[in-house]
């Protein structure tokens, strides 16, 4: 039996059959590069979905690649500000190019971003990168007012990673038209259930667009066709979100009844504080994978992705087994 994967924040549901068939059609053209017209169609569909003009859309093979490119293009000579913990790719690149890397420790119970401190830091040329909602706390760190306060400072470039936007409904994507120093990074990995296709996109303000003008990221045809098909009719995403939120609330309630501290989440995962040492290993022994954050952040914190009702039941019963309750 393969383990139950609740450690990568994937959606447990397959996309509709038509999306899978589109990916299969792409596989039958393995000897060919993607057609530029298809890439343009994908940009148009993303623009419509995001309600942002097509000229602000950059498509890429995964949002991590976009974030890495942003680091390469913009961290040199700038101070880079991120939250801690961060699963942000290319931290090493930041340290290679940036004048300074500042991490802002997020701590319970509120996991709030200290905005005053950030504003004070923005006197020097800065690149601020923030997940919204945040991973792994699940908290919404920015609203439009906060975004505006940050980007009205001309020294600043702000990148908001909205990988979990569909679960929160909070976005600042529409602000990229007005603010050249704002970029929003998104992915079809999560709510669209296309983690295996690795399709990411950037909704970019002018400063970012200019830098990305020579960027060309082709997609594998299977990913491209799957993404196009998914975006043509994305009603299934709403269903994924509804099922996930319903399960998230159920799992949260049961964990609280067991005695764990569970933090409010606007994503498809839960941040949990447990008093059980090595809970990650204990669950792994029972074929349930979660992310134990103790080694890289605060002691006793774990992140658990929301699976199918059956997977969540196995997770909960495994927890009870570990606790012997």
């Amino acid at each position, binding site marked *: 039996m393969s383990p139950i994967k609740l450690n990568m924040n994937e959606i447990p549901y397959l996309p509709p059959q038509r999306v899978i068939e589109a990916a299969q059609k792409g596989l039958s053209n393995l000897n060919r590069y993607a057609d530029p017209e298809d890439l343009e169609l994908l940009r148009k569909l993303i623009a419509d979905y995001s309600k942002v003009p097509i000229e602000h859309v950059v498509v890429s093979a995964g949002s991590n690649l976009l974030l890495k490119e942003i680091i390469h293009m913009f961290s040199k000579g700038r101070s880079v500000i991120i939250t801690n913990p961060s699963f942000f790719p290319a931290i090493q690149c930041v340290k290679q190019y940036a004048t300074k890397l500042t991490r802002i*420790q997020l*701590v319970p119970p509120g996991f709030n971003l*200290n905005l005053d401190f950030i504003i004070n830091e923005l006197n020097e040329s800065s690149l601020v990168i923030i997940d919204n909602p945040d991973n792994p706390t699940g908290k919404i760190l920015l609203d439009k007012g906060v975004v505006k306060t940050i980007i009205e400072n001309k020294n600043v470039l702000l990148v908001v990673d909205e990988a979990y936007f569909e679960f929160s409904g909070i976005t600042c994507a529409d602000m990229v038209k007005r603010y050249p120093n704002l970029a929003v990074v998104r992915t079809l990995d999560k709510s669209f259930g296309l983690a295996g296709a690795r399709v990411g996109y950037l909704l970019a303000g002018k400063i970012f667009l200019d830098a990305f003008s020579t960027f060309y990221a082709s997609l594998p045809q299977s990913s491209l066709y799957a993404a196009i098909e998914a975006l043509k009719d994305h009603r299934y995403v709403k269903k994924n979100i509804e099922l996930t939120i319903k399960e998230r609330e159920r799992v949260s309630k049961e964990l609280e009844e067991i005695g764990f501290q569970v933090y409010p989440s606007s994503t498809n995962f839960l941040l949990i504080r447990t008093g059980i040492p090595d809970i990650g290993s204990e669950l792994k022994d029972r074929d349930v994978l979660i992310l134990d954050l103790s080694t890289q952040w605060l002691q006793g914190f774990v992140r658990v992705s929301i699976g199918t009702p059956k997977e969540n039941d196995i997770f909960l019963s495994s927890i009870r087994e570990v606790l012997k309750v």
Partner: protein
Amino acid sequence: MKKIGLIVNPIAGMGGSVGLKGTDEGVYKQALTLGAEPITPKMTKKLLSHITNKDKIYLFTAPNQMGEEYVKDFDIDYKTIGQVGKNKETSADDTKRIVEEMLNSGIGLLIFVGGDGTARDVCDVVGSQIPAIAVPSGVKMFSSVFAVSARAAAEMVDAFIEGTDLTEKEVLDIDEKAFREDRLAARLYGYLMVPNVKPLLQKGKEASSIDKFSGDNKNEIAKYVVENMDKETLYLLGPGTTLKAITESIGLHKTLLGIDAIFGNMVVGSDLNEKSILKLLKKYELRKIIVTPIGGNGFIFGRGSKQFTPEVIRQVGRGNITIVGTRNKVNKLECLRVDTGDFEVDNLLSGYTKVIIGYREEMVIEIK
């Protein structure tokens, strides 16, 4: 009415400001000759003044300077237990004997004011019979049994009266002789039950990591700190291996557990006490303190480096304090903590700050 015992180790913490790192084995006499002032009266009074449920307490207090002397100034019903001569030298045996008598009188909670040594004495007698609240007043206080401050201890007393859960916390045995010889030798001594009010309890000291990554990280920190050092400034370096890495990177020796001073690439003071630090501060116009938090509990002042007294911190100023710590250590902290014993200085230090955690790398974290 809750029957609660109170015992104070009157000499606890006296070695701190004079750089003696403890008061075990008669070292406190040396502390007295160096001009050390007792600190437990202040801590005990702070504790008693912040308990809000005074009317629900019947206190069994140790006599004279071991408790009674402070209790009588407050509106709390009390009875004195045991005997000890007024202003006479007290010992671990006095603590153990009087705690035993308090237990026989039926106390349901014991409050003690002292350091790691006092915690060990209490642990010997109390074990898991009743819960205890440890008011930090020693020099080191590496045991997790301690409340984060006297005020926090008072809140724990109130929580106990209102019926909070209990939890088990560690008492550590720190070898003071080794500590004075610049070695940290700690072992788990035992456990005490304490009211479970997590934010009010400190975490025990975590051993410094000596793995390769941690060593590399300390060297990164040292490189960044040294690059930003100025030859016209006096640097007062607190205890710890991260600070030692800084001096080693410029070829200077540093005591592991003491406070050393460097100026213009030379060591100008080693294993300093408060008096000698204040003397240096008079001599040098530009001065900075560099400290590292204690792993696990995040204390930067008030634990392990009491030579940085409120007066020293006030003179140096908040803006001249640099905090350094490895990623592994700082990542695991919810906040940094201070408990200098001076409310104003604690307030001055509180708020958000940056900790250097690598080469050109910082962490923003709150000091509480």
